């Protein structure tokens, strides 16, 4: 009996290993290993991030499903911070999940969705277009200051170079969803406050990889800033067809989280 169990366990481990090896990335298309090489540089000598990339995911692994923050990375909550971080459920779908009514996912939640990103870099600007919800971020790199504007869903980004690292500081946020953790645990809807500053640190470590670290500095919720490292993987095979349109309002049959067929 024990031997049977051992064999069964070994079979399960083998199946897990095989599935992990053969189940393709969630975007579905098989992909030949891209040629390795050094990070390319733009005409101005800066590392060039231009190209098609998957969304930030755990370093070393394939991108699978939406990325969420690891709670082990969080700094301690301030008194009252946890209550601000987890938005209570009210039963009103427009409050509880406005994104199901095609409201924006916001930053960084939209960037963490399982869809391709196209980055276009030119002197003075970095443009990031995410297929999901067709989120577009226009990031000035010319040394200008943050604008004095009303709070936003995506934040107001300003980038600068620190050696070969592109640092993007995002301010002027509305209080909004932080990530998609809610869909794993429907009791925990994570929010950031309108006082948050989010700082991205991007390095193209080689031809195929962007090291992407995000720092959350939310003084209304946490006692100190905290960070989590991610990685983005180059997908040159997506160049040919490019990004596709994504219009959430076109045929949204799930307003309020209750999908309804058309009949």
């Amino acid at each position: 009996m024990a031997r049977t169990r051992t064999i069964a366990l070994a079979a399960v481990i083998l199946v897990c290993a095989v599935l992990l090896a053969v189940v393709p990335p969630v975007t579905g298309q098989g992909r030949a290993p891209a040629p390795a090489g050094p990070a390319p540089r733009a005409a101005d000598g800066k590392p060039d991030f231009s190209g098609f990339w998957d969304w930030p995911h755990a370093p070393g692994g394939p991108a699978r499903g939406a990325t969420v923050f690891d709670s082990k990375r969080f700094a301690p909550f301030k008194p009252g911070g946890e209550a601000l971080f987890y938005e209570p459920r009210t039963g009103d779908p427009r409050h509880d999940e406005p994104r199901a009514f095609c409201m924006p996912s916001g930053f960084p939640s939209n960037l963490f969705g399982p869809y391709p990103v196209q980055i276009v870099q030119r002197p003075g600007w970095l443009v990031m277009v995410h297929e999901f919800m067709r989120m577009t971020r226009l990031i000035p790199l010319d040394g200008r200051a943050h604008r004095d504007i009303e709070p936003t869903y995506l934040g107001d980004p300003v980038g600068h170079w620190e050696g070969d690292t592109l640092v993007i500081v995002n301010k002027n946020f509305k209080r909004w969803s932080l990530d998609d953790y809610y869909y794993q645990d429907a009791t925990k809807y994570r929010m950031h406050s309108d006082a948050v500053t989010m700082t991205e640190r991007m390095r193209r470590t080689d031809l195929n990889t962007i090291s992407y670290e995000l720092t959350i500095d939310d003084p209304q919720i946490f006692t100190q800033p905290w960070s989590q490292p991610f990685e983005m993987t180059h997908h040159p095979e997506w160049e040919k067809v490019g990004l596709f349109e994504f219009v959430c309002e076109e045929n949204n049959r799930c307003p309020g989280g209750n999908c309804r067929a058309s009949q």
Partner: protein
Amino acid sequence: MGPMLRMLVAAFMVTAPAAALAHHSFVAEYDRGKPVKVTGTVTRVEWQNPHIWFYVDVKDEAGKVANWGFSGGPPGVLQRRGISRNAMKVGDVVVVQGFRARDGSNNASGGSVTFADGRQVFTASPEDARPEGGR
């Protein structure tokens, strides 16, 4: 289901991509514990964002016909997988596997579609659960 098969299914579940969402919540709307597999005739195709929907007339054992609605991935994601809007036409006979809506209506996530010629396509969202046999 024997113990070995149960363990294999469990192994698949833990290695399958996490059902974390993007536009809508798979876990909120569809019940992983209620897989469905129906055979029927396509009556309508909505190849639109944010998720395709297609409808299938399914006849039960008593001969009564019910129309089922299935939600799939966004058109762009499917196109990147090589599945175009011409893949499914009204009148096609298909076998659809997915997970039933929590509200008990005749709606489900349409994880995989098998055509009469045996061709199978995986139509679910990148964030949705995959039915056994889906790819």
